[in-house]
């Protein structure tokens, strides 16, 4: 087990370098120059542009830029400065990540509780009315685009009923995050419910279930421990990868509800060719993905005793 973890941690290094280098090269190869872009429609003074580029180290060869950038991160935890505003990227990340974490955690809790709950109900009553109702409900959520869902929720709860404020204010209260979290977690909720339902319905007919029932175990224990634990493996896989997606891919939801999180910054950095900000964000996200996928692999062993890591 220990050796397995160490090996996985070591594997992270090449993955980490590879992804950051790829992103760095991709940003670099996009058409458009962030410094010239600051001048808009006007012609830029070449001397001023050259001076700005030099001060930011943008006039160096690309691989050297990458080296300087990565060594700054690894040695001094320095992600560089933004091109336009000159703000340290760590500040920008420090502003955005707590908000996104809050949003992602709420959305995750929402999809976990309601997704698995609905899935269990549907799985145990496979083929019956409750199962069909949940099937229709989840299909509906999957087929409605996020921004439509967002606007419907705003329309109903903010404008018609007046229960919530339509947008997240600058105080970023937890209560304001509920609506965006529901929208963000909605799609995954449907997937979680479908996965849980299928896996439960299948495992209901498994041999070990018959054994457990034959042993005379109480129904609560049969379902709660034997059935649930085995049925959770595909769900956990999905949930694990979903954490990363919730954190990085919330551009649309964040935009609709005025949440100033990571998604919006990624979008803005791409539009403005803010390479350092973008790579910094992606670096953190890559780490999140790597760590969660390791945790999930370890969770497998906990859930299913047949899986062992040497």
């Amino acid at each position, binding site marked *: 087990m220990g050796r397995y973890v160490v090996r996985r941690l070591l594997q992270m290094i090449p993955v980490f370098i590879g992804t950051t280098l790829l992103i760095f090269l991709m940003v670099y190869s*996009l*058409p*458009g*120059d*962030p410094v*010239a*872009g*600051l*001048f*808009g*429609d*006007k*012609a*830029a*003074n*070449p*001397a*001023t*542009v*050259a*001076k*700005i580029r*030099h*001060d930011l180290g943008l006039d160096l060869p690309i691989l050297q830029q990458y080296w300087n950038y990565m060594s700054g991160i690894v040695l001094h935890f320095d992600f560089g400065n933004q091109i*336009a*505003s*000159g*703000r340290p990227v760590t*500040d*920008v990340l420090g*502003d*955005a990540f707590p908000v996104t974490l809050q949003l992602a955690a709420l959305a995750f809790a929402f999809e976990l509780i309601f997704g698995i709950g609905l899935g269990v109900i549907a799985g145990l009553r496979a083929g019956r009315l409750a199962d069909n109702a949940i099937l229709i409900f989840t299909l509906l959520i999957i087929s409605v685009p996020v921004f439509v869902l967002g606007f419907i929720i*705003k329309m109903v709860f*903010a*404008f018609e009923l007046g229960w919530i*404020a*339509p*947008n997240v*204010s*600058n105080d970023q209260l937890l209560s304001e995050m509920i609506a965006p979290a529901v929208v963000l977690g909605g799609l995954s909720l449907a997937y979680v419910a479908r996965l849980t339902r299928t896996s439960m319905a299948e495992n209901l007919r498994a041999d070990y279930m018959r054994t457990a029932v034959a042993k005379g175990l109480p129904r609560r224990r049969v379902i709660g421990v034997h059935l649930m634990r085995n049925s959770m493996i595909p769900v956990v896989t999905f949930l694990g990868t979903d954490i990363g997606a919730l954190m990085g891919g919330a551009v649309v939801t*964040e*935009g*609709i*509800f*005025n*949440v*100033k999180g990571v998604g*919006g910054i990624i979008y803005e950095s791409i*539009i*403005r*060719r803010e390479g350092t900000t973008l790579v910094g964000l992606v670096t953190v996200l890559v780490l999140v993905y790597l760590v969660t996928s390791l945790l999930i692999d370890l969770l497998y062993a906990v859930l299913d005793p047949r899986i062992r890591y040497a």
Partner: protein
Amino acid sequence: MRGAKSAKWVAGAIVVALAATACGGGNGSGSDAKGEVDPNGIYSIEVGEPEKLLHPADTMESNGSIVMSGLFAQLVDYTPDGKLTMVNAESVESKDSKVWTVKLKKGWTFHDGTPVTSKSYVDAWNWAANVDNKQGNASWFGDILGAEKLLPEKEGAKPTADKLDGLKVVDDSTFTITLKSPVPYFAYKLGYEVFSPLPESFYKDPTAAGKKPVGNGPYKFKSWDNKKQIEIVRFDDYKGPNKAKNGGVIFKNYTTLEAAYEDLKSGNVDVLRQIAPKDLPVYRADLGDRAVDQSYSSIQTLAIAFYADQWKKPKKIDPKVIQGLSMAIDRATITKTVLQGTREPATGWVAKGVLGHQENGAGDVTKFDPAKAKELIKAGGGVPNNAISIQFNADGGHKEWVDAVCNSITQATGVKCVGDGKPDFQADLQARKSKQVKSIYRSGWALDYPVNSNFLRDLFQTGASGNQGDFSDPAVDAKIKAADSAKTLDESVKAYQALEKELVNYMPSIPLWYYKVNAGYSEKVTGVTYAQDGDPNIEEVQVLKK
């Protein structure tokens, strides 16, 4: 709120609230106050995060410049019809349009209590013009004698002086500006915030000063919570004519215009600068007389990429062809339908609200006349390859009208026309600056200073800063030079008006339409007016007691 804000590019729906302005201008819509006014009330405006630090000479986009307009006051300002008024200056005079003498009003102070003297101006300009300080709008000092020593053109060049030769302090409240050559409308340029004074404390740590600016304007800086809001409060010792009628302003950052509009409706933000396309059809009904719909000084054109093979090989294109293309565009219908009334058909190259604007500056070529269009194109030898493309940035909401313009041209003349969408504004600019536009490109221009030369000289002179299509004609250049060396401002403006009338014979670009402000405000405020740049006059807004 003085001063044109230069280089405020018209990138699209989001970036459309642009440049320049006058104090106390606007059309006075909504001054019918019913509740009582609270002179210390604080209100909020939807404004995005400024792109850069808040340095007067480096703030080039609208989000930063609306904040700066509250924090700094310049020497002069102008009224909505283009007349010069004095703010921090007692007088700005010149006998020969070359040597200008500025006298300051006495008793002005910065927000930190230090006096505003002629040195505050001269030092600030010397600092901003220096290439080492990387100020984006430094080229504005280019008219002043000796500017090229501080701001060399060549890449990598070092400045060879640290003071502008043309600036001389006479005494505490007088200084002179000597220009390289006469510029009759130079006093107008002084209203732009590049020409702001800076306090002594600035030079100790310019970066810190950019995060917490100390100015001489009607408001002083209070706080900047990155990506969330900026707050400024009234400066009670302000001596200028445009004293704030409210207690302060909060500039609130929104992720989308839609979100801002919803917050306006639910009372969380008081003043908007623009309405998202989604809400345009309903905002008049939603807001009633709090909906704003007025034109401002900004124009959209189709600029011809004269360096492209299509226009120069085998021979230089006959302007008649471009006239024909212009007459094939049904501006009235497109602005009404596709653009939902957010633009107004242009009749010339100079936008409205600018000194020297004339109706029908382009004559007949902006009228929709398919038969005449066909005839002109034929007379000019036809469009090479019988096809054109219009380059635009796909992230700015331009695709719809580009398609409509193309359809209009094809239907009227049979010339094939396609939109050439670049994924975003950066890619679009890159293609323009590296001269890779294949045929025609979309171009937006907002005023820097309210004189017609800004829309003619800065766009059509050979090598001018906004002339990215490489239009060049010796006759036009000569007329521009003559207009610039006119004795008085009036003569200069008239000469430029004559030039605008003649531009139809050269067709450097096809005027499309003028921009309009589509905005609104909440029930909590009154006296909301919008200036020539489309931004609200922030000092004029009055907050009602609850």
